[in-house]
């Protein structure tokens, strides 16, 4: 376990090496192809060793490794320290494992890009920051990772920055993240003020005695923390950056916006579960916002034509589920869904990457300018990309929640936890209902995506069709691995109901034990559990079959000939006009404020005018007055002389 520092350091080393190559010899793609994924696989190996050590140790307390004194200021002592405990163990395995697969995929996907070395440098840097985030032993260290992944997200979203829209998307992501970061910081200040320290061990041991359950302080802290989560994990109201972030390369979307960065918010809530358990109001807010987001995003996904946008809204929706899980108090369930979501969402994104790669290749050959990501230009790709088709169906069934695929168990556990809380407070039934409807919509739109992309007649065009082909093995291989994980991932936490041992829940007990006593007891009878299970499966099947019956892929036309949307469809396709709302309510007033008040008013008028020019004018005026004194007439000077004497005497006499 002592080698835990290697886990983040290896990707950092990769960043340095790849960065040097990018700056000096960007054509050295072979070296980058070895270094980039290589450091990730090495980190994954070390992570496995660390987790094995942890499992063998059977310790109930986290192992903290302190490396140096970072900020010793007065009463505040922050060290650069990493923490190895069950939660961080799960996270590092996901990050390095799924990360390695995505790095391998990128070798094939980004092969022909000139920024190849820069891409891998940024990707490695991102993994480094993500690992710092999940391994941090204190809020500030975690915050370093938090900010760092935000930065890398910006760099990678705007990877092809010569297109203004991509750069804008990067900016949007970063700025919305920053709004959340303000929440994180405010929470840190409050935590320090209340407990006098910022590392997890001290804060969580002091928390039960410092904060009265339901008190204002802890509610404020947790709400601010959740603001940070809303920014990072794209919940209402700070979710609009994520669909725009699809402007980046697809493997980036897979890694950052599906498997790792956006889950940082869920990780934060799981890490601070004690604080959230102490504030039932905040937990309810978390679950409520999660449920609403899950439903809201699902409605938008119903009418998106860009394959990546569908997946983006799907991600927002699934993150909502995770927050319902941790809001309910079922922290293990939330983390479980985090893990399974990482598997199938990464698979979906990488699969769509395969599809887009094939479409791009086809259009490249015929020099067409159609949108390679628009589903209306696809259709019947099953024939040309059979492996991708099969694996993406596995992921679709997983996300829809069909047993025995991974997503079924995690989703069911979350919904079950929400339903159980409903017995004490009816609002939780509302959250459960939202989740259920969202599940129906999820199954529907995912099937829609598969139908339009892989089934029905092909709309890509006569000549392009000949050039459509399956991706090389370096890309399809990782897909297979993820497919297996999506299929079998459910074993991580099989519920006792069907004879499983809830392995993940027990594994995470050292982390969640503190809050168990604070949460209201939420038990449901076995028969209710079976009923809920059945309802979940029924909903999923309804969604899938409904989509197959209602949607007619044959009726689609290629994008450039597609008719405009109208009515509810138009509203959904335009994302409920939320971006436009933000633009009118936030962006434009801020722009006006900055331009008119701050720039013209304060900067030019006050600081330049009154301050700089004004003081110069005053000096000049004083100088002019002074110059009037120098008349050169001795008689006048004598008068001043006597005046001076009179003044001196005045001063002396008093």
């Amino acid at each position: 376990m002592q080698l835990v520092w290697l886990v983040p350091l290896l990707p950092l080393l990769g960043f340095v090496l790849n960065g040097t190559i990018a700056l000096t010899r960007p054509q050295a793609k072979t070296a980058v192809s070895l270094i980039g994924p290589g450091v990730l696989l090495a980190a994954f190996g070390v992570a496995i060793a660390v987790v094995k050590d942890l499992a063998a140790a059977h310790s109930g307390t986290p192992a903290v490794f302190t490396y140096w004194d970072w900020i010793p200021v007065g009463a505040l002592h922050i060290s650069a320290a990493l923490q190895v405990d069950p939660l961080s163990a799960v996270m590092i395995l996901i990050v390095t494992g799924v990360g390695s697969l995505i790095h391998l995929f990128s070798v094939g996907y980004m092969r022909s890009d000139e920024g190849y070395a820069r891409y891998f440098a940024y990707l490695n840097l991102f993994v480094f920051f993500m690992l710092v985030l999940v391994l941090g032993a204190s809020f500030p260290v975690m915050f370093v990772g938090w900010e760092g992944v935000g930065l890398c997200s910006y760099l990678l979203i705007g990877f092809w920055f010569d297109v203004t829209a991509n750069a804008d998307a990067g900016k949007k992501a970063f700025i919305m993240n920053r709004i959340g970061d303000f929440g994180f910081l405010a929470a840190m200040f409050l935590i320090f003020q209340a407990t006098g320290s910022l590392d997890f061990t001290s804060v969580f041991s002091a928390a039960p005695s410092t904060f009265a359950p339901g008190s204002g302080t802890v509610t404020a802290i947790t709400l601010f923390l959740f603001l940070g989560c809303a920014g990072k994990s794209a919940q209402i109201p700070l979710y609009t950056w994520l669909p725009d972030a699809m402007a980046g390369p697809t493997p980036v979307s897979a890694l950052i916006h599906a498997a790792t960065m956006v889950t940082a918010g869920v990780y934060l809530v799981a890490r601070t579960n004690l604080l959230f358990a102490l504030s039932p109001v905040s937990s309810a807010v978390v679950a409520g916002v999660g449920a609403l987001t899950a439903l809201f995003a699902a409605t938008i996904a119903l009418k998106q034509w860009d394959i990546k946008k569908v997946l983006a809204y799907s991600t927002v929706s699934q993150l909502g589920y995770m927050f319902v899980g941790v809001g309910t108090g079922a922290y293990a369930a939330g983390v479980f869904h985090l893990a399974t979501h990482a598997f199938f969402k990464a698979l979906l994104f990488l699969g769509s990457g395969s599809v887009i790669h094939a479409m791009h290749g086809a259009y490249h050959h015929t020099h067409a300018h159609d949108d390679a990501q628009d589903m209306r230009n696809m259709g019947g790709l099953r024939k040309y990309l059979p492996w991708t088709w099969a694996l993406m169906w596995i992921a679709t069934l997983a996300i829809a929640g069909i047993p025995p695929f991974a997503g079924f168990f995690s989703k069911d556990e979350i919904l079950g936890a929400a339903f159980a809380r409903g017995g004490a407070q009816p609002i939780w039934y509302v959250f459960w209902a939202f989740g259920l409807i969202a599940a129906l919509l999820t199954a529907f739109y995912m099937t829609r995506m598969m139908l339009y992309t892989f089934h029905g007649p092909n709309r890509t065009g006569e000549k392009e069709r000949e050039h459509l082909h399956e991706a090389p093995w370096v890309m399809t291989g990782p897909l297979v691995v993820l497919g297996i994980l999506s299929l079998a991932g459910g074993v991580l936490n099989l519920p006792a109901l069907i004879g499983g041992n809830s392995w993940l829940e027990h594994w995470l007990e050292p982390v969640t034990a503190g809050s168990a006593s604070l949460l209201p007891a939420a038990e449901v009878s076995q028969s209710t559990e079976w009923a809920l299970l059945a309802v979940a499966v029924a909903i999923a099947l309804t969604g899938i079959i409904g989509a197959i019956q209602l949607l007619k892929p044959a009726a689609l036309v290629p994008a450039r000939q597609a008719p405009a949307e109208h009515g509810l469809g138009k509203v959904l396709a335009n994302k409920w006009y939320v971006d436009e709302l933000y633009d009118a309510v936030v962006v434009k007033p801020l722009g006006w404020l900055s331009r008119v008040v701050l720039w013209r008013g304060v900067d030019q008028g006050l600081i330049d005018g009154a301050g700089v020019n004004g003081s110069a004018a005053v000096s000049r005026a004083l100088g002019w007055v002074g110059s009037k004194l120098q008349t050169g007439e001795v008689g006048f000077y004598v008068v001043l002389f006597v005046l001076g004497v009179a003044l001196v005497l005045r001063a002396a006499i008093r």
Partner: protein
Amino acid sequence: MNLVTIVFWIFAGLALGSGVLCVTRRSPVASALWLVVTMFSLAVLFVLLDAQFIAVLQVLVYAGAVMVLFLFVIMLLNLGRGAGQDRKGVVGLTVGAVLAGILFVQLRFLWNAAPPALIQVPNAMAQLQQQHGMVGSVAGPLYDAYLVPFEITSVLLLAAVVGAVVLAKRKL
């Protein structure tokens, strides 16, 4: 009301009067002559104040040498009659009067504040003169405690002589 007081006030009045006249005459020669009268009156006041040696010096040096020098220069520059508008305008007069008035008020405050307690021995000077004589009481300390200023003054006078000669030469 003894003799000393009467004499004092007579010559004090004379000094003040001739002072005013000196300041207000148009002709520089007249001003110079009135200034000489003022100096003579002051010499008498000095005698009354136990400063006989200084009184003689006042007459000899000040009235006798300095004022003569003044008259020489006035005559040399042919300013005897006095040119037309010699005083400043109304503004200048007012300013001058105001400033002088302020100064006077301040000085009045000062001379009222001279505490009698400061004066330990009412006629220290007279006692000194009984011991050393009129000249000796001044000359003694001059060559004794105040020797350095005395010597420096001689250097100063030398500098003044040189300076005056240089400045007044027609051609350097």
